């Protein structure tokens, strides 16, 4: 990298005086959101440079994982299985602030919390996850909690499971999938498998009706369709190009452009965008939804000194919105922060990997994997051609690897 490019990359830090920080003042990194992106970034900054002060702002008191949460809906895992504490982060010297972040002042470099406190930062990391575009589906507001998304693991996961348990044999579960890009591309199809797995076991006359706004299954299509056909014949019914535009909790029905469909459990996932704090921080750059970043540092292309991670980013080509990918974002960001805050040049060629496992039954799993390398000519991070791919077939061996993946990635970000 030429020196001028580096200075441009490091410019904001130099202005804040961090590049030449003395022994007295510790550089301060504030992270908003302790999910797959934020927790990973916080832990790795603390690990790689204990001289940097790291503060994490998180509204939740525990981490609840979206990956594996479909298994809770299927009755194959519990909420306890997918919940982890934040004490591990504290052991790395990370300070945790249990609060809602209200506003970001990028000129003053400070964050205002809901309780009125302010936190000053040299570099801010936003890992805000997603918030929903409820307005895109008529009638959605007010339809909750009868109509749920359960697309953030937590109370809605518990409530949707309760609805499925209360469903009489012969009932219909409707799952509406938004147009891509959305969080966790294979997630809806795994969810269809998990709910069908439960129905097959507990109430075999029930049906799963998938209304997909996309023209086809967006991830691992042939593998999912084979599982549906072989494991759940007559249970899962799949409709492509079926975008849900309205819901009615009174009649328990959803409307697509062509049809009105009734169901007993309505699981409608609205389209989403970067979480609210990204909007308030002014880092949303694209379609009023996503945040474009410099993939070498994860720094926002809109606001200097703010780095954005995870599902909130404008995904690079071939990059899914996944927990594993957010974990990779967190590490590239942490490495860049350590170099920038020490007045050094960040790695100009970051590498990221992704492996998404999906449970098609209680034990059998399929995956999609990719490796992404930075390409200076495209000024983006791109999937390596010839690398990556999907499972040859579903297997219990991959089921063991998938559960191992979950425990290791949770430890990698939190322990």
């Amino acid at each position: 990298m030429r020196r001028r490019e580096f200075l441009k990359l490091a410019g904001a830090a130099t202005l804040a005086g961090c590049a030449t920080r003395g022994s007295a003042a510790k550089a301060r990194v504030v992270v908003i959101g302790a999910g797959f992106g934020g927790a990973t970034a916080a832990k790795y900054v603390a690990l790689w440079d204990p001289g940097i002060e790291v503060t994490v702002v998180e509204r939740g008191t525990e981490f609840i994982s979206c990956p594996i949460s479909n298994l809770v809906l299927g009755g194959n895992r519990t909420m306890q299985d997918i919940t982890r504490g934040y004490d591990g982060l504290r052991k790395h010297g990370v300070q945790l602030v249990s609060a809602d972040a209200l506003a970001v002042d990028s000129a003053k470099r400070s964050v205002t919390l809901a309780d009125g406190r302010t936190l000053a930062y040299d570099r801010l990391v936003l890992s805000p996850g997603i918030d929903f575009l409820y307005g895109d589906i008529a009638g959605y507001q007010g339809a909750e909690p009868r109509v749920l998304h359960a697309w953030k693991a937590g109370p809605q996961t518990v409530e949707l499971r309760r609805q499925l348990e209360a469903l009489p044999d012969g009932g219909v579960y409707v799952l509406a999938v938004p147009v891509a890009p959305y969080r966790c591309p294979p997630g809806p199809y795994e969810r269809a498998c998990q709910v069908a797995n439960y129905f097959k076991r507990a109430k075999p006359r029930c049906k799963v009706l998938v209304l997909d706004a996309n023209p086809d299954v967006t991830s691992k299509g042939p593998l999912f369709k084979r599982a549906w056909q072989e494991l759940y014949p007559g249970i899962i019914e799949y409709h492509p190009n079926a975008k849900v535009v309205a819901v009615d909790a009174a009649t328990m029905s959803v409307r697509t452009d062509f049809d009105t469909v009734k169901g007993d459990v309505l699981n409608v996932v609205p389209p989403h965008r970067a979480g609210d704090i990204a909007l308030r921080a002014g880092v949303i750059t694209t379609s009023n939804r996503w945040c474009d970043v410099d993939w070498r540092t994860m720094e926002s292309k809109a606001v200097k000194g703010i780095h954005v991670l995870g599902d909130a980013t404008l995904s690079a080509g071939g990059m899914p919105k996944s927990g594993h990918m957010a974990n990779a974002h967190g590490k590239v960001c942490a490495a860049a922060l350590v170099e920038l805050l020490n007045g050094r040049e960040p790695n100009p060629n970051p590498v990221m990997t992704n492996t998404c496992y999906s449970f098609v039954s209680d034990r059998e799993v399929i995956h999609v994997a990719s490796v992404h390398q930075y390409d200076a000519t495209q000024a983006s991070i791109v999937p390596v051609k010839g690398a990556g791919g999907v499972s040859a077939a579903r297997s219990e061996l991959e089921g063991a690897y998938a559960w191992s993946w979950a425990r290791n990635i949770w430890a990698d970000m939190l322990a």
Partner: protein
Amino acid sequence: MTARLVAAALALAAAAAHAQDNAVARSLAATCAACHGTDGRSVTTEVVPLAGLPKEHIVAQMKAFRDGTRPATVMQQLAKGYTDAQIEQLADYFAGRPR
């Protein structure tokens, strides 16, 4: 005197370059951590803990995954995403990690 200053400056530059090489290796190794544990210390028994494995062993396994001589579910796909130099770097990093 000047020669000494130059030598000191060169030593500093070399140290900085080494620190940066190490940072790059550390970041490459971190791409393995989501499945194999932070610094290659897995909390499960299903995957190989990479910390402290001999460098030559890691390089040989990665190349065996890549050319298909060691069958796998996912590693044959991931190993193809790294260059030879990157495999050397991450293997070197893991070899130097305590188990």
